[in-house]
């Protein structure tokens, strides 16, 4: 059973092992390692990149690419920085509008790719520029006004969440005790990933996403709903990206239409997808795997803090780690018997 799972998910298994080793070593070296405070801080810093990596995964699974994820995340964060405040009702409405905006943007990407028949790379490159433009219109200057209670509740532990909103006797209820030290961001991230992706993956449309990545022609002649699957993939991408944007706005209680930052998020999302073991050519991998990939990227940057590495060397080390990670998987190129198998 485990052997079979390993055979089919080698990249994912390697990613989990790598993350476990990196994270445990990090905590051993940290003066306050294995404490709730460190865990909460780490979890908070991983949410945005985690969501963007998830967003990138779905199009990559079908051999596509979404270069607008960072921009859609930025746009969502800017919308949230304007809308998510006031009464409880207004906050929920604002969050809903934020997610709806990002999801519709993804839906539009899907329509452009399917019915406009524009290559995904260039279509999302262009819509990414549009998203940044809209974000700049909404928030010309960085800033914002996001509900402070919500920010506190969502960026700390379960106990703080219950305490803030007076739930479960202010966090003192007996049934809550086993969970009080779990960071809320971790629950949100894995919760959304599992509740949204896993059910969708099991539908025909969800499986068609994988089928397109393996062999689009075969998927077509098998009568699979190709157009629906492609539109779904980009819509999901927009949804996950806007989740990241919404969280980023809540966490920083502001929005910032920063083009450079949006680009960095998009690039890191591709790196996270690769680190998680999803094939860039499509067909194998998964959203949860990319989440682990994103966590690996973040842990590497946590090391810079405790190791006292010259900040000037950080970009170099980040780049070398990324190159090493992608080259690591290239070993099979040399063990292949028939060179023709290298070409698609």
């Amino acid at each position, binding site marked *: 059973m485990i052997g079979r799972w390993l055979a089919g998910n080698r990249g994912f298994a390697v990613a989990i092992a790598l993350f476990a080793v990196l994270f445990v070593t990090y905590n051993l070296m940290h003066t306050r390692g294995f404490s709730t405070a460190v865990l909460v801080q780490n979890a908070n810093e991983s949410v945005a990149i985690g969501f963007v990596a998830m967003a990138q995964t779905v199009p990559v699974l079908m051999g596509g690419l979404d270069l607008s994820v960072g921009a859609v995340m930025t746009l969502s964060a800017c919308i949230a920085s304007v809308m998510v405040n006031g009464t409880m009702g207004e906050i929920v409405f604002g969050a809903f509008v934020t997610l709806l905006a990002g999801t519709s943007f993804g839906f539009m990407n899907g329509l452009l790719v399917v019915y406009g028949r524009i290559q995904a790379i260039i279509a999302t490159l*262009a819509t990414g520029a549009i998203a940044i433009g809209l974000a700049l219109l909404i928030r010309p200057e960085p800033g914002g006004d996001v509900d402070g209670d919500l920010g506190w509740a969502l960026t700390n532990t379960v106990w703080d969440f219950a305490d803030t909103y007076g739930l479960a006797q202010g966090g003192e209820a007996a049934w809550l005790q086993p969970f009080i030290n779990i960071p809320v961001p971790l629950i949100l991230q894995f919760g959304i990933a599992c509740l949204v992706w896993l059910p969708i993956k099991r539908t025909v449309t969800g499986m068609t996403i994988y089928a397109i990545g393996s062999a689009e022609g075969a998927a077509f002649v098998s009568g699979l709903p190709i157009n629906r699957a492609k539109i779904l993939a980009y819509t999901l991408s927009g949804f996950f990206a806007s989740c990241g944007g919404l969280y980023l706005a809540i966490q920083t209680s502001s929005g910032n239409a920063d083009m450079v930052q949006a680009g960095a998020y998009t690039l890191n999302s591709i790196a996270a997808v690769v680190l998680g073991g999803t094939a860039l050519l499509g067909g194998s991998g998964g959203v949860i795997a990319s989440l682990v990939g994103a966590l690996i990227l973040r842990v590497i940057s946590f090391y810079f803090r405790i190791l006292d590495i010259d900040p000037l060397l950080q*970009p170099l080390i980040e780049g070398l780690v990324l190159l090493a990670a992608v080259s690591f998987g290239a070993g099979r190129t040399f063990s292949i018997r028939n060179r023709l198998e290298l070409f698609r």
Partner: protein
Amino acid sequence: MSRLGTLSAADRPLVIAFGFILVILAVGTVYTLSTTGTMPLLTPKYLLLQLQTGSFLGICAAGLMAVILIGHIDLSIPWTLTAAAMIGTAVGGPGAVPAALAVGLCVGLINGLGVAVLRIPSMIFTLGLDTVLRGLMVAQTGGYAPQDAATPLMLTLAKSSILGFPAALFVWAAVSVAVAFLLSRTTFGRALYAIGTRERAAYLSGMRTTRVIIGAFVLSGLCAALAGALLAGYSAKAYQGMGNAFLLPAIAAVVLGGTNVLGGRGRYAGTLIGVVLIVLLNSVLSIMQMPEALRQIIYGSVIIGMLLIYGRGDRVTS
């Protein structure tokens, strides 16, 4: 549309893009006529100035086109350009431009080896190398703009004018002639198209696909490095992030010129027209004092709109 229908498929993007350039010029001129009563856009001096600043983009796009033709992409252009400019100005003297080109050559070789030999998707490998180059340059310069000034040769190439034309234009023209010749008159060029169409078939017909792919990346690296040396001359020094503004416009220029992003199809004349289109679009938007937000939206919409007209791919049916 009937006229367009009679054009060959390869010519349509060129004609439409050229038509759009005229539209941009017309809109810009109407705007300046209505606000100041002058038509600066249509004066040769202004157009030459625009083309001079566009030549850096044009040189990047020329090299990038070779990579896109084989169905790959080079995302390392920004920091190849910056690194070449920084190393070039740091070496200084007569060795400055060769040093810059050597940087481009090395980057291209590494990219090519990673993509052709290790078979790592170019999207991720060139991206990784871009990050490494950024890291190297940050480590070397301490994150500040380097103090080294551009050499006289760089200044001459980028800023002086010959026979009334900016020298940078001549460099761009020379690169263009060389690339156009490579693409259409050499086995290397034909191999690029063959690999972009079907790498498997190209390999089976005896082409040395590995060498050709490495060659394409070397060409892209060299072009980016040359653009870096020129840009350092134009601004009289090298600075952090000087290449960031070139990657996306270069991709857009190549694709708007009718080159298929998946490789195998495209003509150099199209890339030239694409570069001119992007440059003029930018300059008209800045004449109109368009805020950055609207510029981004217009920029994205134009690319989408043009591709909806002629960049539509084929449906997969088998």
